[in-house]
């Protein structure tokens, strides 16, 4: 005891346990930082990767001079490195499903198989039997795949549904513009958000920066945020005011506000003065006369009528409309949640009409079309007779024909293929998406998939779709490949981000773009000649040259947002090297309110009454009733409220399940990361069971107490859940978080909770046909 032996030995043994050789210790080394594009939900933002010894990625952080996110990152992007290094989840080489199991094969064999299958369809004269589903953010890959399918000869090129689908249609119909829809959030002083998840991830990272701005009273004073939504979300709780309305009635609220503004003459067209069509009476491009939007709104959407539809009191509507119109730069935001769900076309039209009435269109602090970055235009495609014949077929999903205004309807595709006696598709290619889990009705998609003989996945991960595929051609991870991104939805000026590989490939993977380019060349003829680029990098250099030629815009450099002048650029090579180092090109001179936009709609003006609807319907020879439109006459071409029929007998299924989107749960190409699973509260996931939120009134009726197990059942499926009583859930509805119920990936996410999309009934949006799943009839039974 009096000697040092016991004390020293105890201490030393403790320290010895720190140095056991079998405890993994990453080797130390020198730090370096490289910029690249964000991995998943980022939509065209840049990330900075911290590397050790230039060969091991440690963390990701935002690039603080990127004008989109200014260094902010979403939880899924911050976790990107976890996905890169997760050996259990990454596809490590090309795989083919043969004799009951996946077998690793060489790239030669894999691309050979891919090419031969594609060739076979062409040789038999039916290239339209190949279909492709992708889920990338807007950028070169999206365009490249579309171009490939067109040159190949298949019209069946689909994207995962999102709110940008609706915005694209609004841009076409009301604004007569191309590009993206931008919202100048930080300069507005009164925002009415129709369900948009401002704090859940709606829009780009910029939304959160704007929110921060609103809360700090600048020279503009404080910005008022009003959230119009069915259930209490984080955004509803943090908004200055939460207007609770019946699910699916956002459009009616907007029209009620429009009514008050028109009736009390509170509107001011602003930049649209003299440039608006269809507000008063007139004649459309088909020669039909109409009395106009003002008349429609006055007649049909008096506050009392709207109160009946929405559950929002007439006084509230009047008061809100007056405050909104009197603000200096009011702005209304259409959408729902994070924007993964398409919005109803007429609902969005209502909100955009509301914006137009208060002069928010093309005004600082308002809304307007944002031109695409001036990348080099794609060269003309060559189409041989096989391709032309293939493209003449109507799309299986009916977009462009049966549904003249939509461009992609994955849900309809699944329904048609699932319902056909023989599948019209022989090959399905999947890129950067996981429809087996995320399709609006995953059950429908999987039924369709089971009828397709050959499914190819380009995914880097063993997601549900890839586990069920026939051939896997794994893409490099985001740290190993080239990627670019054009303006994300909502950003009020054009942007372009470019990122290059930061590490050499860890596994036997290949860049999908390179595979597509090789495939095009192997198919020969007109397909090959339409893809003259040698590699993805080559292609991107070609595209970026267009921006350099245009000589407009700036590139962010370190410190550029802290007051130091952002850089211009001289040649294409100069621009290329700046972009690959720092990442972001942007053009603030084209910001909403600064840019002069022309409206290329048939009237040459902003259209409250959409000539293209009238024209499109006539050209397709379609009766709007066939497209579930409940009104007739001029209202078909203007914003109005369409009650959406939610499938199911309300007596058997008395509750309405509203899917909930959360900031810390991700649903997309990949699921929530292991890091994200650590921040989930017990009111979301308890053990492995999903917790749903119900109103105490409903709980009382069903004899359910806090934390009780229950079974939630819809027409499509059921799930075992626990209940959490929450007053913020509208009585009669049930709030169920999306993003759970995975059967792929690894133990961090697999078998946790239940998949809402397995249970959803999908309604078809009137006129556009887009999938709407904001409500599913369910019943809840105590276990």
């Amino acid at each position: 005891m009096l000697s040092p032996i016991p004390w020293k030995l105890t201490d030393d043994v403790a320290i010895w346990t720190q140095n056991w050789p079998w405890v993994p210790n990453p080797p130390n080394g020198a730090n370096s930082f490289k910029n690249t594009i964000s991995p998943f939900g980022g939509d065209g933002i840049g990330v900075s990767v911290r590397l050790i010894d230039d060969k091991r990625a440690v963390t990701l952080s935002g690039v603080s001079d990127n004008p989109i996110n200014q260094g902010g990152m979403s939880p899924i992007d911050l976790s990107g490195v976890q996905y890169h290094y997760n050996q259990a989840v990454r596809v490590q080489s090309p795989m083919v499903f043969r004799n009951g199991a996946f077998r690793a094969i060489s790239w030669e064999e894999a691309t050979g198989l891919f090419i031969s299958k594609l060739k076979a369809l062409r040789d038999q004269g039916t290239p339209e039997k190949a279909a492709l589903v992708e889920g990338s953010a807007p950028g070169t890959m999206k365009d490249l795949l579309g171009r490939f399918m067109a040159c190949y000869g298949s019209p069946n090129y689909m994207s995962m549904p999102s709110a940008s689908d609706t915005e694209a249609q609004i841009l076409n119909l009301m604004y007569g513009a191309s590009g993206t829809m931008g919202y100048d959030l930080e300069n507005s002083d009164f925002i009415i958000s129709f369900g948009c998840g401002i704090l859940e991830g709606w829009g780009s990272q910029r939304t959160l920066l704007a929110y921060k701005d609103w809360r700090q009273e600048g020279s503009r004073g404080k910005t008022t945020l009003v959230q119009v939504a069915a259930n209490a979300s984080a955004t509803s709780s943090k908004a200055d005011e939460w207007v609770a309305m019946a699910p699916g009635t956002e459009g009616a609220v907007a029209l009620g506000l429009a009514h008050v503004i028109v009736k009390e003459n509170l509107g001011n067209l602003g930049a649209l003065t003299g440039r608006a069509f269809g507000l008063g009476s007139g004649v459309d491009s088909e020669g039909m006369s109409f009395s106009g939007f003002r008349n429609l709104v006055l007649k049909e959407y008096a506050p009392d009528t709207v109160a009946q539809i929405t559950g929002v009191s007439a006084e509230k509507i009047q008061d809100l409309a007056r405050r909104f119109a009197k603000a200096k730069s009011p702005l209304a935001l259409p959408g729902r949640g994070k924007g993964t769900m398409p919005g109803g076309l007429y609902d969005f039209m209502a909100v955009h009409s509301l914006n137009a009435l208060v002069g928010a269109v093309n005004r600082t602090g308002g809304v307007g079309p944002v031109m695409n970055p001036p990348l080099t235009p794609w060269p003309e495609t060559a189409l041989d007779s096989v391709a032309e014949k293939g493209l003449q077929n109507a799309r299986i999903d009916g977009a462009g024909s049966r549904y003249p205004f939509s461009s992609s309807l994955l849900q309809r595709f699944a329904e048609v293929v699932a319902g056909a006696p023989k599948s019209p598709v022989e090959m399905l290619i999947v890129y950067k998406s996981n429809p087996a889990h995320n399709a609006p009705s995953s059950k429908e998609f999987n039924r369709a998939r089971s009828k397709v003989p050959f499914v190819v996945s380009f995914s880097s991960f063993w997601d549900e779709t890839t586990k069920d595929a026939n051939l896997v051609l794994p893409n490099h991870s985001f740290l190993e490949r080239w990627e670019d991104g054009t303006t994300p939805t909502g950003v009020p000026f054009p942007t372009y981000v470019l990122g290059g590989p930061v590490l050499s490939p860890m596994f036997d993977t290949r860049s999908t773009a390179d595979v597509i380019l090789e495939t095009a060349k192997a198919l020969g003829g007109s397909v090959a000649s339409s893809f003259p680029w040698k590699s993805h990098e080559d292609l991107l250099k070609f595209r970026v040259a267009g921006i350099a030629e245009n000589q407009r815009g700036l590139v962010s450099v370190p410190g550029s947002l802290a007051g130091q002048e952002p850089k211009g650029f001289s040649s294409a090579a100069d621009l290329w090297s700046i972009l690959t180092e720092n990442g972001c090109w942007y053009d603030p001179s084209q910001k909403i309110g600064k840019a002069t936009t022309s409206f290329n709609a048939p009237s040459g003006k902003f259209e409250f009454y959409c000539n293209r609807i009238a024209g499109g319907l006539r050209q397709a020879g379609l009766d709007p009733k066939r497209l579930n439109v409940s009104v007739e006459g001029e209202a078909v071409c203007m914003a109005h409220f369409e009650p959406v029929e939610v499938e199911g007998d309300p007596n058997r299924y008395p509750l309405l399940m509203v899917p909930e989107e959360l900031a810390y749960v991700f649903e997309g190409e990949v699921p929530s990361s292991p890091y994200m699973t650590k921040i989930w509260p017990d009111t979301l996931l308890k053990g492995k069971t999903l917790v749903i939120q119900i109103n105490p009134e409903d709980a009382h009726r069903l004899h359910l107490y806090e934390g009780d197990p229950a079974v939630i059942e819809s027409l499509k499926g059921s799930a075992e859940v626990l209940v959490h009583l929450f007053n913020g859930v509208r009585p009669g509805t049930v709030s169920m978080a999306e993003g759970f119920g995975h059967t792929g990936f690894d133990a961090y996410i697999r078998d946790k909770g239940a998949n809402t999309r397995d249970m959803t009934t999908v309604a078809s949006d009137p006129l556009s046909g887009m999938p709407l799943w904001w409500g599913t009839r369910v019943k809840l039974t105590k276990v």
Partner: protein
Amino acid sequence: MAKQQADTYSRAGWLYFVGGLVLMLFVGWVLFPKALYCTRTQPFEFSHATHGPQGAAGNECTDCHAFREDGSYQGIPPLSKCMECHEELMGESEAEREFHEKAIEMAENGEQVRWLIYSKQPVCVYFSHAAHIKMAELECTSCHPDVTNQMAPPPYVQNRITGYSKDVWDRMKMSDCGDCHEKHGANNACFVCHK
């Protein structure tokens, strides 16, 4: 009779006790340290005196022990630093010749010299030189012994159980860092050093 026996017993017992005590103290304080520590030599006989400001090379300490551009501290410099001068033989010492022979090969293979680090801390410890030298403006010798005038590296006395050098015991254990932080009012929370 019993008393006599008791006397003898207690005297012998007392002797045994003291003898045993002295023996154990000897084992504990002399033999145990000898057994616990072993002395190892550095791979090369590096002389700070020769390389330092008063020596033949006339380098400043910070020429080799410097901060990198990003603010992290280099610590012991990489082989490339040595090769900046020692591509060719600079002097006539035996030690340098020995070094030079091996160094050329190591540089080609991309290897580093396996210096034994006196101040090595466990992986769980985060230490920032920038915070202590640039912000707190401490001298190097506040924590490290002054080796400027030493012709050979100090002996590396290694604890056989933990693998760390004995020099850490007196100056750089957690309690030493904590004491200094407390004295100077620096933050002593866990997460300051254990991230």
